[in-house]
């Protein structure tokens, strides 16, 4: 019988307890648990996640622990066109508040969600960054994300020319 809480060790060598329910929201931890039945006394090492970020992830998991599991629709619709309303609107108020953080934190959470394979959280962070990119000029994006401009003037002129034709489309 597996115990109700799982301990994990983060990159900064802290051991954190999390409930089995939350741990199973991460596909990565879930498969580790399945692989090592009976050996669950040992803390699971998470060398890519810091304790600070893991706490954020647990916050999110706590809020979303009762969400219905994402349905795998792809196979069912395979014979027809797959109609998926994919847009980046974040509808949950709690989520909106959650993503209201510094870029560094957002990126860390995104990477952790990717590593831990928490689908909903990963999706949310991607949407958030997409929203940050939306409707901005290249200069504004560079400023917002601290990107170094390493393109030459010729490159830019050529790109502006190539993209001029499609700029107004959707």
């Amino acid at each position, binding site marked *: 019988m597996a115990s109700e809480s799982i301990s994990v060790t983060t990159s900064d060598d802290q051991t954190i307890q999390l409930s089995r329910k939350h741990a199973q929201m991460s596909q990565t931890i879930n498969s580790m648990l399945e692989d090592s039945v009976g050996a669950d006394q040992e803390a699971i090492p998470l060398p890519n996640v810091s304790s600070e970020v893991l706490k954020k992830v647990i916050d999110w998991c706590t809020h979303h622990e009762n969400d219905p599991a994402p349905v795998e629709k*792809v196979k069912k*619709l*395979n014979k*027809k*066109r*797959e*109609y*998926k*309303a*994919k*847009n*980046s609107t974040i509808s949950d108020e709690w989520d909106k508040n959650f993503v209201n953080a510094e*870029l*560094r934190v957002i*990126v*860390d959470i*995104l*990477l952790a969600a*990717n590593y831990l394979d928490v689908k909903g959280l*990963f999706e949310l962070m*991607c*949407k958030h*960054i*997409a*929203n940050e*990119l*939306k*409707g*901005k*000029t*290249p200069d504004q*994006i*560079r400023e917002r*994300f*601290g*990107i*170094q*401009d*390493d*393109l030459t003037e010729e490159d*830019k002129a050529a*790109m*502006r020319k190539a*993209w001029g*034709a*499609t*700029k*107004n*489309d*959707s």
Partner: protein
Amino acid sequence: MVLGLTELPIEIIVRILTFLSVRDVSAVLQTCAHLRSVCISDALWTELYKKRWMQNEDAIEAENKRRQNAREDAKSSWMKYYLDRLLQWRSWTPRFNAIPSKGLWYLYTEGKIRPKNPEQLPEDDLDVLTETDETLRDHKRVLQLNVDDIAEYLIDPAKSEGLNKRQIAHYITDPRVVDMGIHSTVMKRIGFSGISLEEALRKFFVYIRLPNSGKLTAILLRQFAEGYQDANPGSMFSSVDEAYTLTFTILVLDTDLHSDKIKQKMRLNTFVYLAKQSNSMISNEYLEQIYHNIKRSPLSEYIPGGCINNKGGLVQLWDRLIYGFFK
């Protein structure tokens, strides 16, 4: 360590970019060399392609296969393939002008028009054997599309560029289409609220021309009158019929005053008399105003070639109307 957007693994950047529009991707593309390489990658554009045209993996595989077999010089990036297809869509108007339902279905396949029910994809598996089958199938297809979206494409000046305005009239008066209610959405979109019937008629002719047959003209003008009544619930017309008859009388007046073939022009009192046959409650001032406006500027001046240059249909109706009055 401060992590930025550029330090993210490429597959995550792709994932983020799939939420963006082409315009936004083009902005990201111009920021730095690393992001540019992601922004032109096939990985991104296949995702965008699937999303925009609602395609599944099969279509992507088929296209990839085609590329493998293509000659070296015929191979192009997915980005180019996507953008080419994006630019192609403008040709929807000739399709509509030829066969309206085909044009509208094309818009759907290009992801421009949503299905009526977003949860359910339009069914499209009717076996087509004969020409009648094909017409029926095209019609059934359109029935499953979102009426608001259709009306937007018919009326929005940018989207309906090149559209035959008479074909719009033929389509929305088509007996099989009338039930869908495209006409009322179209009228709503043109917007008749708070303006006089004559102004509404002028506005109407900016978007739509009269069809070639008298019967369809009658249906169209009736739809117009309904639209006007819906937009102006407190108007002076107590019924759609009254609005319809006056609309008609205005068109007759316009033809009469501005046609070279008619030597004896209709006088104000004749017009007032005609208009009052059907509705004696209309004030003389309102009718005089209309008479002078029409005399000053013909309805047809809004449209090169004139809105009523198909005299055949109108004359038939004129006859019917006159007989109606003097029976």
